């Protein structure tokens, strides 16, 4: 690791100060997620370089930055989805409740149960009904949930995702019959059913209209009381609206790096780094 002294002060030291302004939620959600010196490669190409970030439990963190800055790659290292790309490689540590998820003897399927993910494109399972989609995680992860509990769980997840009122009369319809925004909320409900501690969202609103985006943002605010949320977004207003902390990623042609992290209000009003200011003020990107 040839970490330059230029990168270090922007990552760890800022995290320490960033934690101060808003304390994590009061519910006992564990100690959150911590990335330590994360590097990610595709073949020989280094896509993410030395990113260290703390995600305190019960907070919403937005990852912003121009296309190709490595934020999507970084978020996929947080629940080990990165390794599905055949040429992928990784270095560093990701600690969930102080345990390295890349450690030896770790059951990766258990990790993904605790760290759920919502993708850019709504992807409900086409062969399943709305109800089955919500409960698909129970079957897929082979969890033991009784039939009666499953019904309650389904309603609870759909309510938390803000979709219950729209679909309660047609739970047996195909997931694909919903609109794009509803499908995305269905995918959020599906992720909630396995009760994750952390929810990763990779540009969840980029394919949606403003109305659906608003509904999803409301959902995010409600969910942030009970879990840690990390959201990648291209929409800076969205980052400002939903997140407690914002991390700015940038690539100057080389690997993506973390430039600055801090409380969202600070990043958008008085960022420390000139590049962050240029980006959030719309001078580029």
């Amino acid at each position, binding site marked *: 690791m040839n970490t330059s002294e230029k990168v270090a002060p922007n990552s760890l030291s800022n995290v320490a100060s960033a934690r101060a302004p808003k304390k994590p939620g009061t519910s006992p959600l564990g100690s959150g997620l911590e990335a330590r010196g994360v590097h990610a490669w595709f073949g020989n190409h280094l896509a993410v370089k030395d990113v260290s970030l703390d995600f305190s439990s019960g907070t919403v963190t937005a990852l912003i930055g121009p296309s190709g800055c490595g934020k999507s790659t970084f978020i996929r290292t947080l*629940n080990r*989805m990165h390794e*599905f790309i*055949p040429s992928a490689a990784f270095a560093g540590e990701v600690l969930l409740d102080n345990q390295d998820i890349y450690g030896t003897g770790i059951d990766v*399927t*258990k*990790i*993904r*149960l605790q760290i*759920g*993910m919502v*993708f850019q*494109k709504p*992807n409900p*399972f*086409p*062969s*399943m009904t709305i109800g089955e989609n919500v409960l*698909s*995680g129970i*079957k*897929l*992860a*082979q969890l033991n949930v009784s039939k009666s509990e499953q019904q309650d769980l389904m309603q609870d997840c759909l309510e938390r995702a803000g979709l219950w009122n729209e679909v309660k009369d047609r739970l047996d319809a195909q997931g*694909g019959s919903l609109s794009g925004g509803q499908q995305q909320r269905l*995918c959020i409900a*599906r*992720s909630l059913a*396995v009760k994750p501690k952390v929810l990763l969202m990779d540009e969840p609103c980029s394919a949606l209209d403003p109305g659906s985006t608003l509904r999803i943002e409301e959902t995010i605010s409600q969910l942030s009381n009970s879990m840690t949320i990390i959201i990648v977004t291209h929409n800076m207003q969205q980052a400002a609206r939903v997140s407690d902390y914002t991390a700015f990623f940038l690539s100057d042609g080389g690997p993506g790096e973390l430039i600055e992290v801090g409380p969202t209000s600070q990043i958008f009003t008085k960022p420390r780094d000139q590049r962050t200011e240029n980006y959030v003020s719309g001078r580029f990107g």
Partner: protein
Amino acid sequence: MSATAISTPTPSKPWVPTTKQRIPGITVAIIAIALAYVIVEVTPLKGKLGYFITFVPLITILQFLLARIRSNKKIAQDVLVSSFMWTAAFFVFLPTFSIIITTVVKGLPGLKPEIFSQTMAATSYTDPIGTGGLLHSLVGTVFVILLSIFISVPLGLLTALYLTEIKGPGSGFIQFIVQAMSGVPSVIAGLFIFSAVILTTPLEASSLLGSFALSILMVPTVTRASQEVLALIPNDLREAGLALGATQWKTVALVVVPAAKSGLLTAMILGVARIAGETAPLLFVLGGTDALNLNPFHNFNSALPLYIWKGFLIGLPESVQRAWTAILVLLILVLTLFTIARVFGPKKGKI
């Protein structure tokens, strides 16, 4: 132009040419027919084929010239290429319709109820139509097709899953073998089972061994068709399954395969279509019999292709009639199997 003059417009289709606009096109077609007639009369070209090979180029050239005169070069090119498409499509459909019509016309006279209730055990192929039947061959064909499905569909599907989902070691080599296998001449498949099973083990020719030989042909077809269907399933769905804490096996079984089920059924149908009419592989491994054998695992059995082959081999009018009827029955059988699969199989989904 007062506001009250606005009325509901009558729906029309301005893009469809009117009869008047069609006149030049129809004239050109009539000229082409007339010219074709003249050419066939003066040159040694004779018969339906003569008309066909003069008419098609004539109409193509005349249509092109007409379009060239009436409009610009681009439209003329469009007309020319369209003509080629229509001709090519016609050439593809012609044999299909020809086969179906010929089979029905020639097979229908022998289609009597007793052919489904009798065998050839007590009848000679040259006996008059109305005695004997092909029940034994029909049963034999159903046996080999069903057994081949039981053997080839799991093998083909699992191979396809290995190649598209697991992409494990040796995938490239297996892919190569599968492609090579789909080029194996069918008689070789029969000879292989004959030399590998019948000559070296106590097993004797039966429907089971027939289905072994047919499976050699069916597995690559099912594998390649399944692979193409599985490749169409978006990667998002696999990732969504895995992100919910599923193992790869659960993701494939509960997400990927259900999403592809309609296409996988088509893969199975393609496999059955590949083997249903095969005669050569069965010559060595089915035994061939004129009596009904209801045990697919023991003793010689028959199949419709064998029955057809025998009928034509004898070559007398009654035996040839029997063969044509058997072809018709085989056609109906395959059609019935496909219909059953479509009706009772998974409903058409997204793929």
